[in-house]
């Protein structure tokens, strides 16, 4: 029952601090892009680093000597995605829907969108547009367009096949572009009702 406390060495602390300082900003913004709420994004980021600290303290990959920084970066973004998805699911914001082309898309109110006059230009329009996407679509877009991950890396991070990742990426960019322009057009006082997507696109 009683386990002696673990005392990390200075090398571990230094290495972990280094990783944290170089990635925390990107991870926070990635989480913010997925969950929307900066507070929740901070919680997600904090939990990710807690996970990372546990793994690092235990000497587990990718925090072992054999792993390079790219592995650590992929690991951190993957865990951020999973934790953000979990947070969204707990907030009941994820709506699962088939990707089958011959089925009409399910629609459901995703979130109350503030009046247009409350929005502040492009950034807010982009934020709103991002939140009309399914979480995996939003993750695919951010990971590729902002953080520079390859399609193969995104496939591994989201636990989907390369073809699924490619399809998601294409669709995410199309939908984001459409949603963005619609956000700018939306008259004041309207509530956005959007179709979120996904489940598994195994054979879409």
């Amino acid at each position: 029952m009683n386990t002696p406390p673990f005392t990390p060495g200075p090398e571990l602390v230094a290495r972990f601090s280094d990783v944290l300082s170089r990635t925390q900003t990107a991870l926070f913004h990635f989480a913010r892009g997925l969950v929307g709420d900066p507070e929740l994004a901070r919680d997600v980021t904090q939990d990710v680093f807690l996970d990372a600290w546990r793994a690092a303290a235990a000497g587990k990959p990718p925090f072992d000597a054999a792993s390079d920084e790219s592995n650590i970066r992929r690991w951190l973004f993957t865990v951020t995605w999973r934790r953000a998805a979990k947070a969204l699911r707990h907030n009941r914001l994820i709506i699962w829907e088939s990707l089958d082309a011959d089925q009409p898309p399910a629609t459901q109110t995703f979130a109350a969108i503030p009046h247009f006059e409350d929005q502040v230009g492009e950034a807010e329009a982009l934020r709103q547009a991002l939140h009309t996407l399914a979480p995996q679509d939003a993750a695919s877009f951010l990971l590729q367009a902002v953080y520079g991950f390859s399609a193969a890396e995104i496939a591994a991070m989201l636990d989907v096949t390369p073809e699924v990742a490619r399809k998601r990426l294409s669709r995410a960019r199309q939908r984001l572009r459409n949603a963005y322009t619609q956000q700018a057009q939306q008259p004041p006082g309207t509530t956005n009702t959007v179709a979120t997507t996904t489940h598994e696109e195994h054979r879409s």
Partner: protein
Amino acid sequence: MTYAQTPGEPSDFSDRRAPDLDSHLNHHLPQPTPECAGFGDLLPLLATDALTTDEVAATRAHLAGCGWCRAQLDAYAALDALARREYGADAPDARVAPPGLPDSVRVPFQMRQLQEQQMTMRPDDVTQAQLPDDEFTRGPIAAGFDSPTEQAVARSPRPDRSTVLVRRSGRLTGITALAATLLLVILAGILFRTHLAPGGRPTATTTQTPTLQPGADQVFFTHAVPWGVLTINGTTNIASFGTSLAATMPLTLPRGKTTLVYTAAPFNTLRCVISVPANKSDTCPLTQTLATYPGEQATASDLNGPSTPLPVEPKDVIVQQRTVDLGAIPNNLPTAALKSLVAATEQQLSHTASSTEVAIGDHYLGSDGKVAVAKTAFRATLSVAPPTQVASPSNGSETCAPFCAEAGPQPVAQNGWHISFFPVIQWQFAMPGVPVVVQQSPGTGDPIDVAVQWNNSAWKVAVSDTVSNGTIDEIVGNILSAAADPNGSAVGGGASATPLADGVLLLASSGNNNTYEGAVLYRAGVVVVATPGAHTFFPSLPLASAHEEAIAQQLLQQIPASVRATVK
């Protein structure tokens, strides 16, 4: 049955007014040509590495003569630039630490949060996270501070447990706060009765001194099962603890040491000591020690760095809590009990099984993971099961092999201990000496919920209704997509035989939604090419035997003629 003829989404931008993109989507936009539809899905990927060389060349050739598509490409580029500006490293509100702090402070800020959080971890799983004060205050982190003031702040001793406020993700809305308050009142009544002997005489000392911090005598519990019994100081028994209110609400303990015994066969019995106030000699495994739930008025600016004490918002709900991990999670089951739980779950999933006859010359998945050719006819049976022999996906930091400790997203209606699993496909070949072959779905969806009960000597299991032929169809689709997709090529819709073990046909597409490069068949755990076009497309896959080709042709007939005509 699903098909994959997913054309590009309509892209009429003639009247869009988005800022920043407007210049790319104006009234003078050229009209799209009939060829543009074929590039609708490729254009968004042109700036990525997701396209093949041929696709890039074809798209660029089209772009050279198409102003409409060039405008679309510019729009994507503008959106990328905007996203990088808003979500990149230089985005506004980038700091996790409070605004105005130098970069060197951000790290100590986060490390302090980790330091505070590690107090919330149970000793046996994250004692590695113990970051001694000396390490924090005198190590390389503190050395990174710029000013003497910051260094002084960084070197300040860790706040006392009774005053540290850990900002966690709990967000109490007005309704939930009211509900929580009511539950606390109800629980207080229950516990009052629980801890009082007949006649109203207390069985334990309940006197609290003014120095006892709020919540210091309250203990939460996690990882309980419905049939578990919690015994407090050998006298008070709370039966069915896992389903009682007390399992989700805190118990109020008397000052001094309290011995807890949690009995929930077949789990090992937990005996431990916990004290009020907390004592270093306590042996109960804890997952949390402190929590502050921000009030509704809390804002982003309340998140503080090392230089600012965390203020208490007027509406904050502050709970100093400890959570005892009772340890009733699947991976803590004794080996025999876990195996029998897997077996009981497989029994419940037996309705998903179907069989097919593998003829001489047909292909099947050998026990070495390679494609084998049948030398004798035999029967192959497909079924869904929890993962037992393969690595299972993890949910965040949680390992889910074979079961996840959390309930699935679509819980079974039955009462019980709700856990979940990521389904895998099992193939059993009726040949002497050939073991069961298990295939993991490369892309898993949500885990499947299982309601479990323990009847003294055996498991009683109920599996979510979501496990159906459709589930198998999904898993097979994922396996096939991964297996038949070495070049990143699309695998589209198809047809499934009944029973499913007879085969699943999938159509391969190069991205042009109007034609299919061929058809492949999944059967007996392997993928074979079923049409000449598929052989050209997937030269490494084995050719279908005559028997397999006949099955594929039957399945092709289930596909609409208009689609079938495009299959090479």
